[in-house]
């Protein structure tokens, strides 16, 4: 088996010949095995019916491995979550790797295995893919692109759909992914058990749909964090959103890290945390369902939609003052001192 002969990805692994074949069959097909993929046609043949959601995302993360996940887990959870947030059951995924020459086969295998494990969470399948190997220096280790399609089980969920009086729920404590990446990136010698929230959200969304909860808007708070989602909603639906700081769950580790660097947990990325807007009278019921599921036991109603302050998000502090919660700008950089 030629792939096993090598410890590092060679340019020949992308060359279309023997090496590439063995990488694909021995590693990718094994991990992602399913009949559509293995049929090896030029394109996957799918059976789609009803309203379908389609999404794509490219994953470039530094470092590739972090507490609570790796780029592979992220590449599956990220795309599956984009579908889930439209109440679409994730079905078929594509997956492209761009790998830098010299990348360790062992690491690639770890990434691929974690993709396979994450796929089980939603039952989605990788049905087509592509592999490119680029000369050393032309990429940073590995880039992964995944696209996905899924059947929409509950139409009408939209950023434009927030109604005055809606409750806003956040599914768990915020900012963990951004904080975990930061911890892994820096040679920080901090004691911490902080892990990324990286996770597939479909199982919990499926429960909410099954309970027929009337969801107006739903979004995973990825880059830009909670602030970005709420601001997007306020603008798209032309409403105001008011949230109470004391109800927003934030872990002590994340808060501590924010203190150190001058960040705000509201701005930090999440990879397994979502926000829902829904009628106030079903909020408690939704919360009860969410709390039964792993990761969501700190789910909380953090605020509601108001008719004033259109397009703005207002954060009430625990001591009775308030301010705008703005979107984060540019790169997140630590304060200078």
């Amino acid at each position, binding site marked *: 088996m030629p792939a096993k002969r090598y410890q590092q990805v060679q340019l020949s692994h992308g060359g279309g010949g023997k090496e590439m074949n063995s990488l694909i069959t021995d590693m990718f097909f094994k991990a992602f095995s399913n009949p559509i993929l293995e049929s090896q046609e030029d394109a996957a043949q799918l059976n789609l019916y009803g309203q379908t959601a389609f999404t794509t995302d490219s994953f470039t993360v530094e470092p590739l491995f972090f507490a609570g996940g790796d780029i592979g887990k992220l590449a599956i959870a990220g795309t599956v979550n984009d579908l889930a947030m439209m109440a679409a059951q994730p079905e078929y995924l594509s997956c492209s790797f761009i790998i830098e020459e010299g990348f360790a086969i062992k690491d690639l295998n770890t990434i691929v295995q974690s993709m396979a494990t994450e796929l089980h969470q939603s039952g989605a399948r990788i049905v087509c893919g592509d592999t490119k190997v680029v000369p050393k220096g032309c990429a940073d280790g590995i880039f992964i692109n995944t696209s996905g399609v899924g059947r929409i089980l509950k139409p009408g969920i939209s950023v434009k759909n927030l109604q005055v009086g809606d409750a806003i729920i956040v599914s768990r404590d915020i900012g963990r992914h951004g904080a975990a990446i930061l911890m892994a990136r820096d040679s920080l010698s901090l004691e911490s058990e902080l892990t990324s929230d990286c996770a597939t959200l479909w199982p919990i969304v499926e429960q909410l749909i099954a309970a027929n909860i009337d969801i107006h808007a739903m979004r995973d708070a990825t880059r830009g964090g909670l602030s970005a989602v709420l601001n997007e909603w306020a603008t798209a639906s032309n409403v105001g959103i008011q949230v109470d700081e004391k109800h927003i769950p934030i872990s002590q580790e994340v*808060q501590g890290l924010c203190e150190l*660097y*001058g960040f705000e947990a509201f701005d930090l990325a999440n990879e397994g945390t979502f926000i829902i807007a829904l009628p106030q009278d079903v909020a408690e019921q939704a919360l009860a369902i969410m709390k039964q599921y792993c990761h969501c036991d700190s789910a909380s109603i953090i605020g509601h939609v108001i008719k004033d302050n259109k397009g703005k998000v207002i954060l009430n502090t625990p*001591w009775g*003052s308030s*301010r705008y919660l703005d979107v984060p700008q540019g*790169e997140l950089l630590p304060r200078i001192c």
Partner: protein
Amino acid sequence: MKLTDLYQQFRNPDIIKALAAQINQYSSQITSNINIMEVCGGHTHTIMKYGLKQLLPANINFIHGPGCPVCIMPKERIDHAAALAQLPDVILLTLGDMIRVPGSNGNLAQYRAKGCDIRPLYDPMDALSIAKDNPNKTIIFFAIGFETSTPMTAVLIDQAEKQQINNLLFHINHVLVPPAIDAVMADPQARVNAFIGPAHVSVISGAKIYQAAVDQYQTPVVVSGFEPVDVMESILRIVKQKYNDTAQLDIQYSRAVNYDGNQAAQALINQYLTLRDSFRWRGLGPIPDSALTLKPEFAHRDAEIIFKQHLPTVEIDDHKACQCGDILRGIANPQDCKVFGKGCSPESPLGSCMVSSEGACNAYYRYTGVTNAG
């Protein structure tokens, strides 16, 4: 270090409300205005971000001082950084927001996008490993900041010397707080009659550096931490001094600051750095003895000397409309600026006060306009 102990008690709503009540009580018995300058942008942000102003009486005003290294960096120094970054085989290192500050021809982030190797550091000590990992390149640390960040630079120089890391050079832009206070007070229009002293700065230098200001201008100086409880308590201490008609140096942030500061750090700084004759502050103009530079015996690490012929010498003033200078001096508020929020916003800043996340205009832009109604 335990991350969890860093902040807890300092945001306790009951304590904050109780402090607000006391401040209101004292200040209701004071007829004049209390114009407090937060020298440091960190405090400006605490006040704005936590909405503290909303809890305070009308006769307490805040004036946002020159205490942010990003705000006070004149354009020509950014142009120096850009010129250095464009030299072949150079890696330019700097801290945080500095890469967003506009020079006369764009900011460092834009130069980075054009292909210059410019890296914002999270930890200045990373400069050592970057220098070791790139033996064929010249690594230039664009060092910025007040007394707070100076020791880090001194440690870096010290390590570079001891470990003979010869490809690590420095472009020093460290500035000092007391001369800036003097520059503010020297203005005949100065309205400031109390100071909140920077916390981080004082950890290193000690509170003693403000004694002269207290004596000379008869203004209270309270060295304060950055948490809402810290700032509220410091304001209360200022108000009490005003009520008693005294002017003293006081350390609220006593969990980290003492009168003398960190003497080991001061010694290390003195070993490598010395006063610069004059430094041109953005908005305040040239102030003598207000900044540091490498001592002559370390000229072999001084990028300003080694690359002298590549560095522009023109002094560049701000956009004509920009009132950063008056804002840094406490004569104007961000909203007084005609282009505030219109021609100038965090996405396309005209002046540094809008760039830095610690700048006054940025803080006003992000956080003002909210009332308690709603």
